[in-house]
């Protein structure tokens, strides 16, 4: 235990219970998680714990001192969560390691806040390993030997295991919900667990923006388990943009998800996230400013999206719009005998 913990612990023992709850409202969660009995508001923390019977302590499997120490650690962690809200990263750098055959990767990849970077490469080529290296803030200690710098500096080791310093939010392809909650309850719970200020306002924004992204709109009152694939994805992207404190978002294969992909990317980038997308979808791949090609476990090439490629975006968008309109026609139960206008 560090000196500061002892000092905090010493002061905490003399705080009155009502003041403790007032200053740290989340202490309720500590009481709840440990099944502690309700507290008399007028007693001091130390008295509260000293009144616990040995039988009760045995039941929950703790000794008295252990419980007070845990309360101190708990308060510290929760204060870290609050601070995590202000986590900001301007630049992430990947310094090359080696590929599966030990051939050095001669690269220095720099990604800046508000930038989209795409990752391409055959299945099994090592895309996930690159994402994992970034998430772990590897320091030459993973199979690839890569090193990650945050704002040009070596990140603190303790960040690796801190939930509050999670650099990376990962949106995977599977997007099931197992919690039996309405959309509003779900997003509120997430906001609460992140200790987001002005919670109501933020929850409303998340749901509103998710509805903009999703092809079909949904009400805040329906259960999350009733959302369609596209709606879930839209909700998670809006949620990540507005509630997650992680400055980097990893997206694995977002194609054909029934959401407006361009808007989704814009939303994340506008929130100054670094968006990393593993994709083979040409529309998404060209949206990025750079494209990393992975081969045999290593970064093979870094391509800057060229002017010509940017020009081709227009054609791809047209194609995508055309396909979307066809989809819409079918969804409405109409016939495709006459194709929608391609030139729109």
């Amino acid at each position, binding site marked *: 235990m560090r000196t500061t913990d002892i000092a905090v612990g010493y002061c905490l023992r003399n705080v009155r219970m009502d003041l403790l709850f007032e200053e740290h409202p989340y202490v309720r*969660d*500590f009481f*709840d*998680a*440990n*099944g502690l009995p309700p507290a008399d508001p007028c007693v001091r923390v130390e008295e509260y714990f000293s009144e616990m019977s040995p039988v009760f302590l*045995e039941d*929950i*499997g*703790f000794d008295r001192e252990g419980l007070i120490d*845990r309360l101190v*650690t*708990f308060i*510290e*962690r929760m204060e870290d*969560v609050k601070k995590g809200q202000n986590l900001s990263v301007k630049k992430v750098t990947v310094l090359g390691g080696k590929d599966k055959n030990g051939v050095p990767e001669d690269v220095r990849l720099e990604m800046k806040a508000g930038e989209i970077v795409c990752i391409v490469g055959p299945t099994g080529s090592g895309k*996930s390993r690159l994402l*994992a290296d970034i998430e*772990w803030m590897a320091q030459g*200690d*993973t*199979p690839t030997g890569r090193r990650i710098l945050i704002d040009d500096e070596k990140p603190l080791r303790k960040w*690796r*295991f801190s*939930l509050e310093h999670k650099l990376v*939010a*990962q*949106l*995977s392809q*599977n*997007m*099931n*919900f*197992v*919690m039996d909650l309405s959309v509003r309850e*779900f*997003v509120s*719970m*997430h906001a609460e*667990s*992140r200790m987001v200020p002005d919670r109501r306002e933020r929850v409303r924004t998340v749901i509103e923006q998710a509805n903009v992204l999703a092809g079909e709109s949904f009400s805040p009152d329906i259960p999350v388990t009733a959302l369609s694939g596209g709606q*879930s994805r839209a909700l*998670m992207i809006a*949620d*990540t943009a507005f*509630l*997650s404190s992680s400055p980097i978002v990893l997206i694995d294969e977002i194609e054909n998800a029934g959401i407006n992909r361009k808007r989704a990317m814009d939303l994340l980038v506008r929130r100054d996230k670094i968006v990393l997308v593993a994709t083979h979808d040409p529309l998404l791949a060209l949206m990025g400013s750079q494209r990393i090609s992975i081969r045999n476990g290593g970064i093979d090439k870094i391509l800057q999206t060229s002017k010509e490629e940017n020009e081709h975006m227009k054609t791809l968008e047209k194609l995508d719009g055309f396909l979307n309109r066809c989809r819409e026609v079918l969804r409405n139960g109409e016939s495709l005998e006459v194709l929608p206008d391609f030139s729109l």
Partner: protein
Amino acid sequence: MKVITVSGPPSSGKTSVVLKAAWEMKSDGLSVGAVKFDCLSTGDRKLYERNGVDARTGLSGSLCPDHFFVSNVEECLSWGMERSFDVLFLESAGLCNRCSPHIQGVTAVCVIDNLMGVNTPKKIGPMLKLADIVVITKGDIVSQAEREIFALKVRQANPGGSVLHVGGISGQGACELVSLLMEGEEIESISGRSLRFAMPSALCSYCLGETRIGKEHQMGSVRKICLE
């Protein structure tokens, strides 16, 4: 030898996590052994050995699996020492949410999964709350927000430990888990060490094989439920 106790509810992915970690350790040239405690039957020895981990299994049968674990842990350690493993995993059956024989000074891992529901972390006792490392599995089948909420609930129940996600199928995070496991101290002998918390108090007549129901058949340490 690094000794690691692994606990967690049934089917949370304990064996998968150990196998993925063992694979990473073996590719670093370490020798790995495992003892799996189970209750009635287990096919895990084969599973371990197919993955190149020398393993033994122990079945508790009619005994409390955690009592069985702690009464045999010394022997397991000697077995590991004889074979001079670099790392020995001791995997418990994970049947009781309160107990799991975490030992003072021996790295204790608790494995739970994202599908267990948001209230599970607080329902699990010292097994989760006193573990050094909590591994959360099955993150690939829930949303990012659910992973975050669940991890925070775990953090609330165990504010002091390290919490990390490992994919039991993909192995994502296993390499990271290993670097944490290798920080544990070298253990030569376990005799005389203490459990981190006491096992449930015994002994009532049902512990001794009584099957009949009714007050007259209940003896020993009996506590009554309060239905007020």
